[in-house]
C-alpha cells in the first residue's frame, strides 16, 4: 500500500494502462470474430501508444515520442486498415473461428500469466525504471499472443497474434529500458510492415491453393 501511494499519478495511470493491455490480450485470445479481433488489435495499439506517451512525458525521454508516433501510425491506423482491406478482398468477413473450447484456452491463459509474472519478477528487480512492475504484464502479453497463434487454425488470426506479440515486445522494451534505440525501432517497424505485406500475399496464395485459409491444410503439402 505504502509503495503504491508513493508512486506518482502518471505511474499509476501507466500501471492501469498496462492492466488494460493485458485485458485486451485476453479479449483477443477468446475473440471468435475476425473483424472484432482487428478492432481489438487497433485498441491494443492505441493503449500502447498512450502509455508510451505517458512514459515519455514523465521521464523526459524524447525519442519515446517518435516511438509513440510510429505506434500510432503503424499499429492503430495502417495495419488495421490493411487487415480490413485484406479481409474484404479475401471475403472472409464472416469467417468465425471454430476455436477449441474457449474456457480451456482461458484457463491455460491464466497459467501463462502466472508463469510470466513469476519469470519477470527477478528481471524487473534489475531494471531501474519507473515502469518496471509492468514488465511482467509485457511478458504475459507476448506469451498470450503466442498462445493465440498456437490455438488458432486460420491464417489471419495467427498473423494478428504475431503482430500483437510485437506489441508486447515493444511494451517490454519501454518498461524495462525506456525503449530501444531509434534505429532498432525503425527497423522493427519496417519489418512488421513488410511482414504484413508478405503475409497478405501469402493469404492469397494459400487461398488459391486450398480454397480456404485454414492452416491445417499446409500439413499435407506432399504429393500423394
Amino acid at each position, binding site marked *: 500500500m505504502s509503495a503504491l501511494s508513493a508512486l506518482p499519478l502518471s505511474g499509476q495511470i501507466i500501471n*492501469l494502462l498496462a492492466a488494460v493491455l493485458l485485458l485486451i490480450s485476453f479479449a483477443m485470445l477468446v475473440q471468435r470474430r475476425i473483424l472484432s479481433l482487428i478492432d481489438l488489435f487497433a485498441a491494443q495499439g492505441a493503449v500502447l501508444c498512450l502509455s508510451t506517451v505517458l512514459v515519455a512525458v514523465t521521464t523526459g525521454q524524447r525519442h519515446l515520442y517518435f516511438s509513440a508516433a510510429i505506434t500510432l501510425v503503424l499499429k492503430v491506423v495502417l495495419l488495421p486498415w490493411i487487415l480490413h482491406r485484406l479481409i474484404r478482398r479475401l471475403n472472409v468477413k464472416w469467417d468465425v473461428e471454430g476455436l477449441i473450447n474457449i474456457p480451456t484456452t482461458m484457463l491455460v491463459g491464466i497459467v501463462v500469466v502466472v508463469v510470466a509474472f513469476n519469470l519477470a519478477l527477478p528481471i524487473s528487480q534489475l531494471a531501474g525504471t519507473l515502469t518496471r512492475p509492468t514488465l511482467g504484464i509485457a511478458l504475459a502479453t507476448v506469451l498470450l499472443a503466442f498462445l493465440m497463434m498456437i490455438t488458432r487454425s486460420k491464417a489471419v488470426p495467427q498473423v494478428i497474434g504475431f503482430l500483437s506479440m510485437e506489441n508486447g515486445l515493444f511494451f517490454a522494451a519501454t518498461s524495462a529500458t525506456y525503449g530501444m534505440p531509434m534505429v532498432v525501432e525503425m527497423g522493427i517497424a519496417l519489418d512488421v510492415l513488410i511482414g504484413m505485406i508478405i503475409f497478405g500475399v501469402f493469404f492469397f496464395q494459400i487461398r488459391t491453393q486450398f480454397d480456404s485459409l485454414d492452416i491445417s491444410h499446409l500439413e499435407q503439402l506432399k504429393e500423394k
Partner: protein
Amino acid sequence: MNPAALTLQLLELVMALLLAPLLMGWVNQCRAWTQNRKAPPITQPFRLLAKLFEKDVVLAYNASSLFRFVPYMLFACMALVCVIVPVLSTDLPFSPAADVIALVGIFALARLFIALAGMDVGTAFGGLGSRREMLIGFLAEPALLMVFFTASLISRSTALPTIVESLAHREFVIYPSLAFAGVAFILVSLAENARIPVDNPTTHLELTMIHEAMILEYSGRHLALIEWAAALKLYAYFSLGFGLFFPWGIPQGTGVGNVAMALPALLLKLAAGGFLLALIETLSAKMRVFRAPEFLGMAFLLAVIGMLVHMLLEVPA
C-alpha cells in the same frame, strides 16, 4: 449497544425493503425508455406485491412443508444480506456478524433452498430451472469469491465495513486490480440476478428461463415474498458493488448529519446504476444457456487476473 447505531441499522433495513422494489421499478422504467416503449410507473412492483399479497395461495397437493417454508427462508436471507452490507454507515452493529465469505454463503443458502423448492413439486420445469440455477451458481460463486478476495487483499481484511472504510477513506490511488474485479463483479451480478445476457426476468418462455422456471408453482403471498426477495437481492448486489468500487459517500459515524449526507449519495448511485443495468440489458442479447459457462468463466478469469495484477503491480516488492 449504541442506540443511535441500532436505529440506523433498523433504518437501513426499512430502507432496503422499500428501496428494493423501487429500484426494480426504476430499472424496468429505464429499460422501457431505452427500448422506446411506454414506461410503467416506478411504483409498479409495489402494486404487484400488493396484488399478490391479497391473493390466496394455491398449493400443489403433493407440495411438502419445504415448499411452503422456502419463500420465508429466501426473504430472510436477502433481508439479512441487506442488513449486513454497509450502506448508510460503516459502523453498524450487525455488520460484524458476517464477513464477505459468509455473505457468499448466505447467497448460496438461499440458492440451495430455492433450487430444492423448484424440484419439490416434481414438475419438469421446476427441475430444469433448478438444475440450470445450480449450474449458474456453481460457476458464479468462485468468481464472486475471487472479486471479494481482491478487495480483501487491498484492504487486508475480509470484513465488509473494514474493506469499505479502507477503500473510501484513503488517499486517491488507482487500483488496476479493482478495475478488473469491477468488471468481473458486473458479469457475476448479471448472472446471479437473472438479468438479460444470462436469463430474462420477464419471460415465461420455457427454453430460456432459469429463475422463473423454479418459481412457476408459487402463487399468492409466497410469490410476493419471492419477488420481493429477488428485488432485495438486486439491491444487495448494487450496494455491495457501491461498497467495493464506489465507496465515496458512505460515512464512518452514525450521526444524523452523516446519514443526511449518505442518503442522497446512495439514491444518486442507485439511479445511475439502475440506468446502467437497463442499458446493458437493452444492448445485449440473451445468450444460449450453454454459453453461460463461457460468460461466467470470463468473470472468473477477470477476477483472477485482478488478483494477479494486484500481486504484481500493487504489492511493494
